[in-house]
């Protein structure tokens, strides 16, 4: 649909970018993106996707807003305490732009619901906080041939990578399995640092949707805000032995691999070198 006069004004700074322009803005407005997790990464990612005029934004999270979230998860307000995070994030999007379709999924993704959930979207963002769920999203996206943006962030650091089917490695090619006990560590995180990674995810989403630039596919962006050690490391090619995207995949059905998607906290470790 051609842009309205209001939209031409609203997205004026996109229209002068040769990589976006009117055609690109129309593509963004007709795109459907799913953000899984509505915490720190998502605060930054959703804010940028909504501002940029991505026409349909799905938000999935089963958690509720807690006081300790507000230090970094700026989508949520004091007024939203104890309400569902997807619903709270949806309010933020609606306040920015009434024209955006917000699809609320106030639930935790699991091996039973995730494939249905992601099937209606063009692109998925992994904004969840547990490695086990990151692997669930990875496996679902590989099996469903769905492109997605991976990111993780703690303390002052994090990483991001973009999976595109048949174009590069998946998270499992790089890490094989969800690190044991990782989720059970209680580590700090600075909002401004996790926000960098969420912003990278929004950037990758826009680049994918518009087919512009060079994605973080087959490359990992690593960022440490404390030292400003920042790099993009090439990981070309897939692991032929990858359990989900390799030549003889072990994981063909998420329910059969369900054990790996549920965190076990028996082996709680201290802060490991990362």
């Amino acid at each position, binding site marked *: 649909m051609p842009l309205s006069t209001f939209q031409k004004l609203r997205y004026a700074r996109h229209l002068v970018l040769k990589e976006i322009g009117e055609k690109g803005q129309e593509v963004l407005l007709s795109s459907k993106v799913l953000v899984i*997790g509505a*915490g*720190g*990464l*998502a605060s930054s990612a959703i804010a940028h996707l909504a501002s940029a005029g991505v026409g349909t934004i799905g938000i999935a999270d089963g958690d509720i807003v807690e006081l300790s979230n507000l230090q970094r998860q700026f989508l949520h307000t004091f007024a939203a305490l104890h309400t569902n995070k997807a619903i709270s994030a949806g309010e933020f999007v609606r306040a920015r732009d009434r024209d955006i379709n917000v699809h609320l999924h106030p639930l935790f993704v699991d091996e039973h619901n995730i494939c249905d959930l992601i099937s209606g979207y063009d692109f998925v963002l*992994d*904004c*969840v*906080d*547990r*490695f086990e769920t*990151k692997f669930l999203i990875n496996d679902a996206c590989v099996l469903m041939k769905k492109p997605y943006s991976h*990111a*993780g*962030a*703690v*303390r002052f*650091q*994090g*990483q991001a990578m973009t999976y595109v089917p048949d174009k590069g*490695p998946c998270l499992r*090619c*790089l*890490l*094989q*399995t969800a*690190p*044991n006990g*990782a*989720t059970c560590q209680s*580590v700090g*995180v600075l909002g401004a640092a*996790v926000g960098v990674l969420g912003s990278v995810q929004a950037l990758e989403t826009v680049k994918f949707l518009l087919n512009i630039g060079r994605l973080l596919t087959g490359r*990992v962006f*690593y960022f440490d805000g404390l030292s400003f050690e920042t*790099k993009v*490391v*090439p*990981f*070309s*090619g*897939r*692991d032929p*032995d990858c359990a989900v995207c390799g030549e003889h995949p072990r994981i063909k059905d998420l329910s059969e691999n369900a054990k790996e998607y549920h965190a076990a906290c028996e082996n709680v470790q201290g802060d*490991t*070198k*990362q």
Partner: protein
Amino acid sequence: MVKVNGEPLDLAGMRLSDYLSSASYSLSFIAVEKNGTIVPRSQYDSCILADGDSVEIVSFVGGG
């Protein structure tokens, strides 16, 4: 010389797995690439570092 995360180190002839444990990396959190290609964890033992190799080790974090 072997470049590890951009730093030249005298590691030629060393097993990748030996280097990683001597540098006390937590193996389940890292991804390793040598000369641009993924080295899967199952090959850390058989991977012998050679003069001129460039190795990058990226530590992944969960959290979001």
